[in-house]
Structure formats: structure tokens, C-alpha cells
């Protein structure tokens, strides 16, 4: 057996009270793609941070090409050929692609940037790795998928041979995923090694050579792709058998709950992000919105659930136009909203779980008396019930929300919105960054809402999720629904083509 490109042996790292990594070992061969899978909090991130020099392991060692190394920080890691593509890109939006790539490594002639040689070097890298980007474009004008390519070029330019990708496909369209995997294969052919972190098991089975599963800080198993199956990996990750597909009872549609008519919404950047969009959602129906990010999804959600700069058109909730209503009026009218960025919008982190579970309803009886004095007991009792019903893991309802695990914070937001007993549930990217167990929970809740006769508007970047849950899927492109597909007719590849606008003829 040839010398491994990277070896991590018996890595142990504990933080006060938790052992994030407990004697974890993995190795990566040259020209290999290793998928690293595990639930949120299983210790993948810690392990990769150790590899990248951001944490120091308590014990265990790392060897690169057979030499044991101590990695003191990201600079050191890069120096040893380890590069990482983070979920959140580290790019300067107003700079050009070239500037972003060479930043920190600029070559100069008498104090003047000499970019010609470097841009030639980058062009060669683009060719070899099938990563075509316009070097003179400004990063802020590029789509997320292209920005990711810039990130990859950045680390290749610094000579990375070991590349770590932290959930790279979470933000991509199916076509972009295909292209990313082409790049993966090209890099593999050059003998680079790739560690690929993801939640999506289909992708694991498609691209990985070997799969390492970790659970609760321990390495559970490393297996070859050949012979691995989705249910097997999923049950190893969770520690028990998992239902990958939520059962969807036959539909029983009621009257139209939400109707959006010729809606035009101006985005905060001043253009019409939603541009003449119409759709209807019936009671007992899940309507999925598919589309590449930035095609007006966020603005549409805001126009329905919050308040946005609506230029024209109507948003009708049970026939009543709500565009000039406040958030509170909309909530009282029966709209619940699982926000896209739950860290930012969902919870008051220093506040107790109980207060968070009544947030949005906190101003009305029984949570306050008529003199608007807080009724702590009513809040606690209501919270206890929600905690029990939705199985939120918390020591008590008085625990501050920031002490909960990420998955339980997500659950808390979903539980709160569901318990408001809405007529319309707007769910924006409800499972983004959520692990398999919590995803299953959220999917079940959405289907339950549907069975209870609620209308559900589901906005998601995850096509599999949309295909599994939605009764109808509307594909949004440049602020319009360009195609509506009924559940039974939906084909993934076709939806993907509409998402990129390549197939925009059959406008809805």
C-alpha cells in the first residue's frame, strides 16, 4: 500500500464536558474522495478544524505524506498543502476574481502588481480542474456556484493537494452539483485527495470512493462505496434505523388559502426581485418553490410573512389583501413563518426556551394579563407542553436558548410556529444545515400540517425535499413562476433545467 496522503490517528479533543472527537482516525489516499458524514454535532467540524490548525488535539497525531506534522494554524495548513472550502465563502465581493485569488500572494515588480504571470498560472489551473471563471469579473456579480469555484481556485493556487469541502453542495443547483463533481473527478485524476462533508447521501454514493461515518465524536465505520447503501449509512449516522422518505397520505385539498397575484416586490438592492409572480396554495396542500437562490424567493417570503416593498400586485390570505398589514396582523390572521436564517431571525438566544416558545404570541393572554404584566406561569406551562409534544431536548424550559444544540434550536422554532395553529405555514429552507434526524422531524411536521388542512408554502434549495413533500412545485426564475409541476409528474432533471432558466418556454 502506498503512503497515505493524509493520516489522522486517534485524534481526541474534548471541550469542557463534551468529547467532540474520541480517538477518531481517518486516512486519505492520493487520488481519492473520502466522504465524511455524521449528524450535526457529531464532531466532523471539530475534526476538520483540527486538521486546519484551528484547534489543537488533546492527543493523537496527523501525518501528511508519511511525515508527522503539528499544524499550528490555517497558514501552516495551507503551507502543508491542506486547503478548505468553507460553507460561507471568504471572498471580498467588490474585488475581481483575480484579485480575490491572488490576495496575500501578489507578485510585484518594483512595488507594482504584476498579475500577468499569475493570471496565466490560474488559467492553467482552471483548465486542469474544469473550473472556468472570468478572472476580470467582480465577485459580487457572480452566482453562488461560481463564487465557490473562486474559492476552490484560491486554495488550488496556494498549492493545496488535500482539499476539504464543508457541505459544498448545500447552495448549488443540480446542474452546478454535476459541474462540481466534474471538478472533483479532475482533481482526483491529478492525484489530489478530497474530503467531502455532506448530509446528502445520494451525493455520497455518487462521488465518494470511501465513506467515513462518525457519530457522537466516535468513528463508527469506514466503508467502501461499493456495497454501501443509503439506509445503512443513515442508520450508522443516527444510531438507529431512519425513515428516509416521509409517508405522505393522499391529498385532500380544501379552498384556496393563499393567493398571490401579479406580485412585484422591490428588493433592498433596488431591483424588482419578484416580478409579476402569481400562485395559489390550497388548504391541505404543500406548494413547493424551487429555484436557484436569489431568484426572488426571499422577497416573496417577506412579502407574504413580513412586510416588503411591494410595488404592485396582491397577496390574499383567504381572500383578504394583506400587503399593508403589519407582521403582528398577519400572524393574527393565521400566518406562521419558519424563517430562512433561524440563527438570525428565529430565536432570542439569551432568553429562556419558554420565552422563545411564546415569542410572537407573547403580547396576548394568557401570556400577559390585561394590564400587560407577564404571566410567567402561563408561559412556562405552554412551553412545557410544546417541549413535550415536539420532543425538544432541553434541561428545562428556563434554560437559555443559546444552551441548546443547533438541532434543538431548529426544532424549537418549528415547534413554536406549528403550535400557533396557523392557516398558512411559510417554511423557508426549513432543513438547511439540519442533520438527518432533525430533517425527518421537520418533514413529518410539514406533512402533519398538510394533513391538518393547513396550507404550506415550502421554499427550499433542496430538490429532493421538494420532490418528496410537495403536491405542486412552482419553479421560480427571475422573480416569476415559470413552470408549475404536479407532484406525480415531477422529474428532478427537468426541474433543474427550469431552475437555471434553460427551459423557460412553458411559462405558467
Amino acid at each position, binding site marked *: 500500500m502506498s503512503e497515505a496522503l493524509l493520516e489522522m490517528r486517534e485524534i481526541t479533543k474534548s471541550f469542557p464536558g463534551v468529547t467532540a472527537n474520541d480517538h477518531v482516525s481517518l486516512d486519505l489516499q492520493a487520488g481519492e474522495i473520502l466522504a465524511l458524514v455524521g449528524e450535526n454535532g457529531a464532531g466532523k467540524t471539530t475534526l476538520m478544524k483540527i486538521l486546519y490548525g484551528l484547534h489543537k488535539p488533546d492527543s493523537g497525531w496527523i501525518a501528511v505524506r508519511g511525515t508527522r506534522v503539528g499544524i499550528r494554524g490555517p497558514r501552516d495548513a495551507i503551507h502543508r498543502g491542506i486547503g478548505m472550502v468553507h460553507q460561507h465563502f471568504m471572498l471580498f465581493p467588490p474585488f475581481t476574481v483575480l484579485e480575490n485569488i491572488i490576495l496575500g500572494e501578489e507578485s510585484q515588480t518594483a512595488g507594482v502588481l504584476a498579475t500577468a504571470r499569475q493570471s496565466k498560472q490560474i488559467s492553467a489551473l482552471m483548465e486542469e480542474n474544469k473550473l472556468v471563471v472570468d478572472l476580470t469579473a467582480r465577485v459580487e456579480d457572480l452566482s453562488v456556484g461560481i463564487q465557490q469555484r473562486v474559492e476552490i481556485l484560491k486554495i488550488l493556487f496556494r498549492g493545496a493537494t488535500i482539499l476539504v469541502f464543508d457541505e459544498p453542495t448545500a447552495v448549488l443547483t443540480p446542474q452546478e452539483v454535476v459541474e462540481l463533481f466534474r471538478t472533483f473527478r479532475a482533481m482526483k485524476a491529478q492525484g489530489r485527495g478530497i474530503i467531502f462533508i455532506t448530509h446528502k447521501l445520494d451525493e455520497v454514493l455518487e462521488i465518494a470512493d470511501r465513506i467515513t461515518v462518525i457519530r457522537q465524536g466516535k468513528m463508527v465505520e469506514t466503508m467502501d462505496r461499493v456495497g454501501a447503501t443509503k439506509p445503512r449509512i443513515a442508520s450508522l449516522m443516527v444510531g438507529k434505523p431512519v425513515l428516509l422518505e416521509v409517508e405522505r397520505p393522499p391529498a385532500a385539498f380544501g379552498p384556496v388559502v393563499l393567493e398571490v397575484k401579479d406580485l412585484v416586490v422591490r428588493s433592498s438592492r433596488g431591483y424588482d426581485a419578484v416580478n409579476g409572480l402569481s400562485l395559489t396554495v390550497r388548504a391541505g396542500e404543500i406548494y413547493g418553490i424551487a429555484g436557484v437562490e436569489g431568484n426572488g424567493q426571499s422577497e416573496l417570503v417577506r412579502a407574504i410573512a413580513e412586510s416588503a416593498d411591494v410595488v404592485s400586485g396582491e397577496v390574499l390570505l383567504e381572500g383578504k389583501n394583506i400587503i399593508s398589514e403589519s407582521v403582528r396582523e398577519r400572524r393574527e390572521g393565521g400566518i406562521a413563518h419558519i424563517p430562512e436564517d433561524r440563527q438570525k431571525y428565529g430565536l432570542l*438566544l439569551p*432568553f429562556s426556551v419558554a420565552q422563545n416558545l411564546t415569542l410572537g404570541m407573547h403580547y396576548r393572554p394568557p401570556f400577559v394579563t390585561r394590564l400587560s404584566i407577564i404571566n410567567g406561569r402561563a408561559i412556562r406551562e405552554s412551553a412545557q407542553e410544546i417541549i413535550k409534544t415536539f420532543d425538544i431536548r432541553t434541561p428545562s424550559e428556563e434554560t437559555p436558548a443559546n444552551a441548546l444544540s443547533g438541532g434543538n434550536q431548529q426544532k424549537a422554532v418549528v415547534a413554536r410556529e406549528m403550535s400557533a395553529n396557523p392557516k398558512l405555514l411559510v417554511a423557508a429552507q426549513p432543513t438547511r444545515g439540519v442533520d438527518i434526524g432533525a430533517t425527518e422531524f421537520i418533514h413529518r411536521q410539514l406533512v402533519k400540517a398538510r394533513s391538518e388542512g393547513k396550507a404550506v408554502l415550502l421554499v427550499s434549495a433542496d430538490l429532493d425535499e421538494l420532490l418528496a413533500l410537495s403536491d405542486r412545485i412552482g419553479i421560480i426564475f427571475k422573480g416569476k413562476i415559470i413552470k408549475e409541476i404536479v407532484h406525480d409528474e415531477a422529474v428532478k432533471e427537468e426541474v433543474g433545467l427550469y431552475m437555471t432558466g434553460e427551459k423557460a418556454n412553458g411559462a405558467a
Partner: protein
Amino acid sequence: MARHRRRFGVYALEQSAPFIGFLASGAVLTFIIMALGENPGKAFQGIFKFSVSDPAKLAALLSISIPYYLSGLSIVIAFRAGVFNIGNEGQYFIGGMVGAIAGVYFPLPPVLHIPVVVIFAMLGGALWALVPAVLKAVRGISEVITTIMFNNIALALVNFLVNGPLSGLQKGTSLEPQMKKLLPSAVFGKLNGFFRAIGWNVPNYVYLDYSLIVAIVMGVVIWFLLFRTRQGFEIRAVGTSIDVSRYAGIQVSRVQIGAFMLSGAIAGLIGLQEIFAIRGFYTYNLASGLGFDGIAISLIAKNSPVGIIFSSALFAFLKQAGYGLQLFSKVPNSVTYAIQGIMILFIVAINEILIRAARSLRKKEVG
């Protein structure tokens, strides 16, 4: 049981920053005194003698902490709502003047007159906060800039009014520019007799007056408002995250304006003791800087209406300690100011460290 004890330990750790900071800055002070060639023992004795050595000194500390407390309280409200009211300096000059106008020109019986001047002082402070509050909430204009500007405008305005239309200079009185003397019914009585009756020997030269009652009442009211009412919940929610608040249907701009004006209203009370108990008339030569001190007082106490009892007492102590140090040693005045700054810096920095430590300990408990 063990868990309970642990939780208390974490809590104690979180709250201990002021004490550690206090001790650490004491150590720095010792070092400075020694560097100046003074005897630290003698210097600390001077501090002790002038601050806490007997009941009269303690009473003086209490008296001095009243305006500090009110100033801190006004900042607590603003900070809890996430607004940076640097304007309580101007608000107390205006609030004091409006209160004094009511005290000079409204002939009322004492039972009514005292509450009326308090209310007017609050109205004055609140009104002075209105424009920056609206600019902030509606147009998003930084309140740091506007309130600083309004401080300058306030000083110019009271200067003009006290020298002009409201001038009360009379023959035979001092030449200090001032408004007319307050009507006797508006003058704040002293509580010294009451304290002596319950066994605390408060000498006559110490002002423990109605402003103490005002401070206590306001402290309780604000505490209740912040932690026991929906409005207070919304103030704290907005201060924690505007995004979450907006998402939850809270009218952020309304809450910000309300909290800002309430902050101004409390700021309007800072000058009460000096105007209505000590001087008996309004002048623009009121002790200045109390508004800015409130920022540090609130910061040290982590914006707690209870915590500022201690941090305002600390400020009062530092003030007296400074006098003691100057009288009994050759340590210059500037050192006492430096020590104040160092102490605040220590407390705030140590606080951040301890909060982080406590958070990871809690995580461990939950995890």
C-alpha cells in the same frame, strides 16, 4: 443537588467580574502609589477615612450615589433597547430646567408641587430625547451623533434662557447666573431626621433628601417594567435582536422611541438633588459629566437596574476616595481619574472573559 450547587457556582462566576476588577485596579493603584514614593498603607488609610470609616461617611456615599444611580438607570433602559443614548447629559440639564420652571412659577401646595416638579423634569428629559429617538427609529440616523449634538444644543439653550428670559438674578444674591429661587413648596425636604430616628446618625450637612425616594421608586418601576411587563419584554427583545423582534411582530421603531424617551425621562431626574435640595435654584453650572458617568455605571452593572445600585455606590466611593487620596497623600488627582478608567476597563474585560467561561460551563451541563 450537585447540579444545583454547580449552577450557582457558574452564576457566581458570571457575577464576580466587578469584584475581581476592583481588586485588580486596587493592585494597580498600590503599584502607582509606590512608584510615586508614597506609603501605600497611608494612602489606603486616607481612602478609608474619607469613604467608609463611619456612618456619616457612608451617608455621604449614599447621597452622592443618588444622581449616579438615576443616570445609570436612564442608560440601562436605553441599552436594554439597544439604543446608545449619549444624550442624557443634555437631557438632565433640560429636564432640570423644566422641573425648575414648574418649581418657580406654579404656586401649588407641597403635596402636589413635589410630584409636579418631578413629572415636569421627566417630561423635559423625555422631550429632549424625542428628536434623536425619532431620527433613529424612523430614518436610521445614528443616535450617537444626534444626542451628542443635542447635548451641545441643550447647554447653549439653558445658557441663553437662564441669562435671558428666565433670569432670576436679584440684588443681594450671588452673581452666579441663575433662575429665580424655587418656591418653598417645591424644595425637597431632607430625610436625615427619619434616618436618625431609625438609628443611623446622618449629620445635617449630608443631603439625603426626597431625591432618594425618587431614585428608589424609579428603580423599582423600571425593574418591574423591564422584567415583568410585555413592554419591557419587547424592549429587551429589541435590544437583543432587531431581526428576531421584527420577525416576531414587535414594532421595533415604536419600542425604540418609547425606550429612548423613557431613558430621557429618567435622565431628567439626575439634577433633582442638586437643584431642588442642595441649591434651591436652577443654574446651568450644575455638576456636569453625570450623564456620561451613567454609561460606565450601566456598563459595569451589565445594564441591570439592581446592579447599578452597586456600581453607582462604587462611583460615589471612587469620588470620595479621590478626595481622601489627595488630602492624605501626595498622589495627584489625575491618578484617581486614571484608576477609575482602569477599573472600568478591567471590569468590562474580565466580565467578557467570565461570561464566555460560564457559557461553556453551561453548555457542558446541558450537553
